[in-house]
């Protein structure tokens, strides 16, 4: 069976609430069938608006959304057949778990035995069999969450939307729910559009991540690519930790360029979004890509002064004053070779120019 690569298609979608500010600008996004795609971004970046347009609670100001090749702007939410998990679960508080799950089936006029069967199946999928007669108020946060997931899937929709579903759970529960949702997605192959502002959630669960900022998709790629190869400084900042140097490109070539920093030093970097000499740029470097006192040969070698040492168990975070950046973070793995890390010491820091990405200036 060939997969439908544009099962959901946002085609030049704009959205404005007040006619003055665009919350979503010229959004083009294709979502393949069976994919788990995450919309990630800070609050106010337009990701939830996109989800609401897809669900039918908001209409695009311009452009069209296609679901399985059909335009859906004029279809009301209840006819779209899209499952949805809401931020605060939105379980019906006056109905039992069974009635909550049976609701979408009853409005679809299923027979009683079929409803029973489907509810049973959905509840066992989220391992909540036997909870049929509980009221939502009698369940813990995690259990309510699972009921909400089961309810969104019980009527076998092809597409499920999840709007920050784990936001209200504590850290441990959130992590285990992440895996649970991921496994459910894998086992039933439903298409999932997931909205979150939590990057670790996005990285663990998704096939692809669309990073939103300012109403635009900044980058759409797989989690590893997003982390390793951010295409602009917003993405580099937003995903994971990041050390930055502001400077100007001096020596541009195809593979690498030299960047003259504000204090006069020159570093070698990987040109991503700079075109020519004289361009302003922000160089981004992941903390774990810089090594201290290494014997490996690398093309950037500098000395920095240790400002702060924070012990994290498996690794130690070191804050350095390096090339005028007092917030330079290093992650040193916890092994005996690195015992001389003490506050005030000078140490050698090196990295490969390939990992130092020269992006757009902030």
């Amino acid at each position, binding site marked *: 069976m060939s997969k439908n690569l544009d099962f959901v298609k946002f085609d030049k979608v704009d959205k404005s609430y007040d006619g003055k500010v665009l919350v979503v600008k010229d959004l083009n996004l294709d979502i393949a069938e069976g994919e788990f795609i995450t919309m990630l971004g800070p609050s106010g970046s337009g990701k939830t608006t996109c989800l609401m347009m897809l669900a039918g609670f908001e209409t695009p100001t311009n452009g069209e959304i296609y679901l399985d090749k059909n335009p859906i702007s004029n279809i*009301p939410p*209840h006819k779209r057949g899209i499952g949805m998990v809401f931020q605060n679960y939105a*379980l019906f508080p006056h109905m039992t778990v069974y009635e909550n799950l049976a609701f979408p089936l009853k409005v679809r006029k299923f027979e009683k035995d079929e409803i029973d069967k489907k509810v049973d199946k959905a509840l066992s999928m989220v391992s909540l069999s036997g909870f049929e007669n509980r009221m939502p108020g009698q369940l813990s946060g995690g259990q309510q969450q699972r009921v909400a997931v089961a309810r969104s899937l019980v*009527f076998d929709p092809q597409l499920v939307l999840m709007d920050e579903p784990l936001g209200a759970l504590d850290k441990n529960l959130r992590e285990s729910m992440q895996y649970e949702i991921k496994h459910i997605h894998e086992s039933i192959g439903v298409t999932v559009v997931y909205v979150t502002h939590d990057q670790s959630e996005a990285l663990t669960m998704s096939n692809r991540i669309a990073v939103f900022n300012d109403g635009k998709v900044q980058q759409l790629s797989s989690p590893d690519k997003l982390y390793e190869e951010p295409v602009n400084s917003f993405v580099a900042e937003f995903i994971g930790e990041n050390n930055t140097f502001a400077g100007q490109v001096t020596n541009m070539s195809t593979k690498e360029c030299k960047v003259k920093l504000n204090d006069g030093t020159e570093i070698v970097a990987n040109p991503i979004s700079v075109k020519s000499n004289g361009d302003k740029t922000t160089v981004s470097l992941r903390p774990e890509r810089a090594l201290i006192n290494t014997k490996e040969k690398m093309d950037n070698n500098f000395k920095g002064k240790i400002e702060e040492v924070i012990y994290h168990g498996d690794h130690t975070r070191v804050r350095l004053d390096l090339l005028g950046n007092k917030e330079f973070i290093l992650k040193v793995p916890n092994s005996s070779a690195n015992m001389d890390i003490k506050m005030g010491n000078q140490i050698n820091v090196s990295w490969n120019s390939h990992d130092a990405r020269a992006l757009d200036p902030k």
Partner: protein
Amino acid sequence: MSSETGKILTTDGIPLEVSLKKAERKNKIKAFLLVAPLLLFLLITYIFPIGDMLMRSVDDKMVTEMLPKTFKSMEKWDGKELPPEEVFESFYLDFQKLVEEKRDGKLSTQLNYTKNGFKSILKKLRRKAKNFEEGNYKEQIMAVHKRWADVEYWRAIQRRAPAYTSQKYLKGIDMYKNEEGKIVSVEEDRRVHRILWLRTLEIAFFVTLLCFLMAYPIAHLLATLPMKYSNLLMICVLLPFWTSLLVRTASWMILLQQQGVVNDFFVMIGLVADDNRPEMMFNKTGTYVAMTQILLPFMVLPLYSVMKTISPSLMRAGKSLGGTPFVAFWKVYFPLTIPGIGAGCLLVFILAIGYYITPALVGGASGTLISNQIAFHMKSTLDWSFASAMGLMLLAGVLAIYWVYNKLVGVDNIKLG
């Protein structure tokens, strides 16, 4: 004792419970002192007057106290034939005492209530009793008037023996105790109170219904509109609340009278002819309109406070799961507003059932309620015990409604705000 060993002791060896009580005592006293003024206030202004009302409504001591000897000697009398000499004698003694104190007029009024015809025979007795000789009072009294030889009159006196009576309550529902002591209804053309009770219930019911129908959309709008509009709307709802009840009722009188604004408008758009203007005031219509408007905020506010807590995502969830907007409303939103509906309806109904000023001003003859009747007896006939009895019946009715409501919906489900 085995329980002694189970007690937990503090480090100082005092039982934990004792120690806890000691520690909490100060707070308890403080809390009590804080509520004490209110408690006292309620006691004086609420509990005591209601108790007094209850006493007044059943109090029938007046005659009991006026004829103490008579009633004592009547205890042995079976009431079948004329009472023995002993009764006549004590009645004569009691009566003479009243005549001396010039209270015999009151007695004759009271006994006349019980049975017509007492007034004249008591007057005659008073005149003749001056010349009574000692002994054989039975003969002498019966000689005054033939009615004194009628056992019915003596039975009527006996009926007034108890210090307490239920007759005011029976009168409140157009019933009375007849001469055989049976409870019967008054003749059909003299039944006023039952009609009033039914009308009160009917008007309270329909006012509640109208309030509910109008308040539900308003409350929903209030709960869902953005802040700046909802505040304005809230003020519109509350504005009448801040206006004097009398002013509001009076303005309805201006609007609804036959030459009033509403009628003028109807004539202008040609809905009614100028010489055939409908009467919208001094009848039920006026009462309905004015009371609905005045009681509306009492329905809006509880509904609003409940609707405010219903997350909009619930309706969205209902729709996204495939429910049409109506199904989502009916199955999801509406059931969640029931606590507010209950609170609002109860509030409006109870207020409406005892409403006074508005029906008094715009109700006319066909739009007055039981409370107007109570006021009438308080102010005009001065039959306070009857007014008290009806007031208590109203109170009992309200409590009964509350009880039924509690059985049906559950008071825990009420949310007043």
